[in-house]
């Protein structure tokens, strides 16, 4: 038992532990990596994503900043163009907005405007999403504000193993990456995670379940909802192809197109508001790549077109298994 389990080869980790693990490995491997953010030092981050790193790597590499998102991202631009690899934490995605100007006009455009002379290889980590009874503004899912911003990649893992591998890849990426972390999944599940360094390719989604009747397309915390709905649908005899998008920009167009070409039907699930949401891009993608295969209108199950409500109503806002199942049946019975 002890031998097959080779203690050093894998660990059972939650997502937040896997993220911590990736950060630690990268801080060890690459001297130019720096962590910056509010309360990420002694306090280890409000979710403990950076727990222990301050003690190990010191205040020069794990840097508690002033409460100043634009200042954090703006100085990180300067650090990044000058040889460092800043990994900045926005305490919650709902607090990324003050840094929006810096991200829009500099982080994402620096390579373009200097024809590659100055580049900003930084990672912006942002815990996002509802479902943890947090106060107002803490529960936003703002991916669509960044997938409409050429020059930055957007990544969102759905499981501990993917979180570690994608974060390591994001840190190694020569371009800026917005790394969205589903708070609701931070401690939802433990998974066997390799102890060593590894990367998961940015730009690729994954198929979690092979099926023939309908494609379920989701990311982040909604992947678990899609999987649960798929199980219920399978019980009703509907075979689901379940796709975890993982990279929200650039999308893995081939994976999604192939899946819908096979099934002829799709339900896209996301937590952000439907209007303006990334789901619409995926509808467009399917329209472009699988029009003739479609056997029913594409369904979307998303947050309603309202601000994420205060937490007493957040469960009403978010897609859940029953809502997804209903749209699956609607598509199949069209």
């Amino acid at each position: 038992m002890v031998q097959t389990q080779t203690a050093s080869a894998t660990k059972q980790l939650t997502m937040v532990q896997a993220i911590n693990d990736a950060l630690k490995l990268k801080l060890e491997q690459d001297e130019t990596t720096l962590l910056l953010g509010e309360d990420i030092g002694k306090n280890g981050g409000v979710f403990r994503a950076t727990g222990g790193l301050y003690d190990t790597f010191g205040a020069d590499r794990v840097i508690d900043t002033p409460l100043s998102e634009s200042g954090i991202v703006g100085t990180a631009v300067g650090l990044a163009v000058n040889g460092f690899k800043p990994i900045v934490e926005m305490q919650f995605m709902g607090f990324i907005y003050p840094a929006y100007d810096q991200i829009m006009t500099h982080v994402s455009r620096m390579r373009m405007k200097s024809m590659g002379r100055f580049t900003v290889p930084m990672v912006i980590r942002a815990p996002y999403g509802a479902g943890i009874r947090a106060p107002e503004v803490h529960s936003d899912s703002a991916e669509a504000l960044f997938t409409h911003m050429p020059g930055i990649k957007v990544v969102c893992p759905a499981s501990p193993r993917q979180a570690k591998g994608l974060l390591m890849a994001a840190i190694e990426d020569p371009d800026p990456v917005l790394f969205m972390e589903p708070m609701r999944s931070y401690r939802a599940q433990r998974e066997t995670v390799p102890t060593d360094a590894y990367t998961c390719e940015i730009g690729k989604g994954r198929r979690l379940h092979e099926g023939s009747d309908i494609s379920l397309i989701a990311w982040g915390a909604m992947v678990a909802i899609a999987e649960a709905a798929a199980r219920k649908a399978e019980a009703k005899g509907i075979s689901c192809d379940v796709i975890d998008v993982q990279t929200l920009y650039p999308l893995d167009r081939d994976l999604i197109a192939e899946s819908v070409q096979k099934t002829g039907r799709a339900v896209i699930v996301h937590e952000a508001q439907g209007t303006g949401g990334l789901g619409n891009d995926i509808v467009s993608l399917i329209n472009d790549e699988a029009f003739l295969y479609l056997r029913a209108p594409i369904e979307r199950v998303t947050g309603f077109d309202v601000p994420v409500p205060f937490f007493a109503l957040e469960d009403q806002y978010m897609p859940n298994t029953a809502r997804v199942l209903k749209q699956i049946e609607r598509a199949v019975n069209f």
Partner: protein
Amino acid sequence: MNNQFPITKIIDDDGTLLDTSYEEQLTEALSYHLYHHMYRIRTFDRKAISLQRQGRIGTYPPFEGQEAAQVGSAYALGEDDWVFPTYRDHGATLTFGADMTRMFMYWNGRVEGCVPPEGKRIFPAAVPIATQIPHAVGAAWAEKKKGTDNIALVYFGDGATSEGDFHEGLNFAGVFQTPTVFFNQNNGYAISVPFEKQTNSATIAQKAIAYDIPSVRIDGNDCFAVYFTTKEAIDAARKGKGPTLIEAVTWRTGAHTTADDPSKYRPEHLGTDTVDPLERLERFMKTYGHWNDEKIAEIEQTCQAEVETAVEQMENASQPNVDDMFNHVFAELPDHLANQKLAYEAFLKEES
């Protein structure tokens, strides 16, 4: 710099009067009012922590230690003034007239908690740090344009001074000479980040120089210093003399929120020499003969009963209404949203 902005006190830690020019104004009635409010909000605060521990409300940010700062300032406001609080200033808004039941509801994730009593000009607590500062400038500016003598008072923490909105708000106030009182509670920490890491300046008061706004640094645990300083700033604003920045130096006794563990980042010994603001007022009252055990007992009972009733009302409140999620986004529900609402209501019916 520090010396340009010494900490002003009216009473000392042991309750003795330091600034005798205020002697006549430190009446028994004032002592009781301030004590009552401080005791009341402390009772609320401790109850909220215990409710959170029992899972009866959500994450909660306590203000224990900051009662003098919140009560002293809010008590100085006039009926028609505006208040712009943060998530930690419900001690102040309760003092100014916010509804206690709704305050508990707020911390239970209910949007109803943001709605002030009719006519009370209390803004929903700002969650994104410092964003409320320009709001208070705008609301005060509106009063000036209308020709009233109402003012706006805005609360914010030491951490908030690092945000751009602090800067932009104060700059507007300076330029347009709005009747705004910027009330800073420097409680030494922004979550885990101590003030010395937040900024290189020794004080927050000195930051007002950038906008040529008068500023003052006071002992935020001296309820009289807070009350009279705020009152003077408010009076100046009412008289068209423009904005003031007040830095009230205080101390958060407990955790940042119930999800926070200050032992992770705050050295044990820090704050141990800070005298509790209620105790400090008690000492003063006892020294100057204002203290009456019976009256105090009565106050304490009233407050306990009020808090218990509010908890009960919060817990007996009607269930959150799904309609509320849809109904307050626009003045009129747009068609697509009306359809989403209808469809969701139908879905809920099916499911049940």
